[in-house]
């Protein structure tokens, strides 16, 4: 069955430090992969997506993610975190099915940024 695992429920990093959020998926074929961010009281916003080609994808707000097929991972990174990055981050995987796509979301990782 298709699944998405975000091993870290929450992470705390210092402002200016680097960040890596982990995401592992279970899916037979090459999936479509996404990272969304949810700021407090807001809906989800797409950060980046991967569906083919270069395995290192760039997103908005200085984020990037790398698809590693051998590890079934799609980790999100940022070299220098800003206080405004404090939010909840969701990894998602989609696959084609009759009538469209089926998208599964991970449970989310909440990022805290300390001064």
């Amino acid at each position, binding site marked *: 069955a298709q699944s998405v695992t975000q091993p870290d429920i929450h992470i705390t990093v210092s402002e200016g430090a680097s960040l890596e959020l982990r995401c592992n998926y279970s899916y037979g074929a090459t999936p479509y992969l996404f990272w969304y961010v949810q700021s407090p*009281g807001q809906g989800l916003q*797409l950060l980046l997506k991967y569906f083919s080609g270069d395995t290192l994808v760039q997103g908005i707000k200085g984020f990037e993610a790398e698809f590693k097929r051998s590890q079934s991972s799609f980790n999100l990174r940022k070299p220098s975190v800003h206080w405004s990055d404090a939010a909840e981050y969701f990894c998602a995987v989609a696959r084609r099915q009759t009538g469209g796509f089926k998208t599964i979301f991970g449970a989310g990782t909440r990022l805290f940024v300390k001064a």
Partner: protein
Amino acid sequence: NAGVTQTPKFRVLKTGQSMTLLCAQDMNHEYMYWYRQDPGMGLRLIHYSVGEGTTAKGEVPDGYNVSRLKKQNFLLGLESAAPSQTSVYFCASRFPGGNVDEQFFGPGTRLTVL
């Protein structure tokens, strides 16, 4: 261009009461979705629609009904609310076709059932 909007933003119900959540999008998207978000569980799909007049069940449809009478609107109904339906509800939409299922989300409705 407002994107995806949801009304109301907050609501408190008593057990057994009914209500309807409204989702509206002005992007001419065909596909629309209703999710619920619960702590530690991410987003779970309740119902979805692939076009005006069509609806389909998602992962957790029990206790909910939906209607898509107009392309731009997707309504989520709770006929007899239960405390287990306390959650944050998100609506999303997207274009049909294409290679990537990028969804656009509304700001959410926080529902508490007492």
